[in-house]
């Protein structure tokens, strides 16, 4: 899923400080699963905004909506009858949400309520970790199922480097050295010979280095 973190409340309040009527829009996709932008979080953010503004004696109307997804036009469309009623719209979907809203409603003032972090998963309740960097050419099968692009601080394809110690990366004792994990796993599986293979220089043009990307499926186009 795409994992995000709510922006500091002060930042969000500052974005909408001149507004009297605001719509907080959540998303039932990834951000619901990582508990940052679903229906529940829409309620919490809306209530927090109302409390803050009441406290300051500058009342605001904050309405709440949660769309099925904010990354599909048909769901974004569902706001078309109400969007003009608001001075501002705060989207707490990933970075795609506010962009899709702003594209669909060019006259609306759309603000992001979330800082989108990474593609990852829940490693335990309340803890999410990065697993994919979207490089556009998956290689994890070469590395025991671990991704050195996303999980090695240097994205090394032939690791580990000298910064690996005690299973941790030199950048932080909280960061596992993924190359340590790769070597441990392949050794256990008796597949250390895999690591003798030279992985050719990675073609980064499939990643962000190739510019903004697009996927086209002719069979699905209407």
């Amino acid at each position: 899923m795409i994992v995000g973190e709510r922006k500091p409340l002060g930042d969000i309040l500052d974005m909408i400080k001149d507004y009297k009527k605001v719509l907080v829009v959540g998303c039932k996709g990834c951000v619901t699963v990582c508990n940052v932008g679903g229906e529940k979080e829409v309620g919490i953010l809306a209530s927090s905004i109302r409390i803050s503004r009441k406290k300051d004696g500058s009342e605001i109307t904050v309405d709440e909506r949660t769309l099925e997804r904010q990354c599909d036009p048909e769901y974004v469309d569902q706001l078309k009858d109400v969007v003009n009623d608001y001075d501002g719209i705060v989207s707490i979907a990933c970075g795609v949400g506010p962009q899709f809203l702003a594209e669909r409603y060019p006259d609306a003032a759309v603000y992001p309520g979330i800082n989108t972090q990474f593609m990852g998963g829940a490693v335990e309740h309340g803890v999410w970790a990065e697993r994919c960097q979207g490089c556009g050419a998956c290689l994890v099968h070469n590395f025991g199922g671990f991704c050195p692009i996303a999980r090695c601080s240097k994205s090394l394809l032939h690791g580990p480097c000298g910064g690996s110690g005690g299973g941790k990366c030199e950048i932080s004792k909280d960061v596992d050295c993924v190359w340590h994990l790769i070597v441990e796993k392949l050794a256990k599986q008796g597949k250390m010979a895999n690591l003798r293979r030279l992985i050719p220089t990675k073609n980064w043009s499939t990643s962000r280095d190739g510019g903004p990307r697009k996927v086209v499926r002719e069979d699905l186009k209407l």
Partner: protein
Amino acid sequence: MRLSYPTNVKVIQVPCTGRVDIIHLLKAIEEGADGVYVAGCLEGECHYLAGNLKAKKRVKYVKKVLEEIGMEPDRVEMFNMSSSEGPRFAAVAREMTEKIKALGPSPVRSKL
């Protein structure tokens, strides 16, 4: 026991403090409550194992929200007591009332 506690404390019963969510605490503040506290079972003695521990974390979250918007985090509190501790229930009600009185009325309510 015929114990008395301040009449300004309004009790809302829930089956377990694990039912108390962030939004419930925020709504109380939003609607003008001067303070809100959760009275849960003793830690380690939750009938549902961890309801009171979850409530404690949610109270902490709400404290942070209040802090972020410039309100006193002490307006939200968590207390633990066993169901047989009537005197403690009354004492906590008095303690919280005193604390909130010292903080003064909620700025949310006074501006309404």
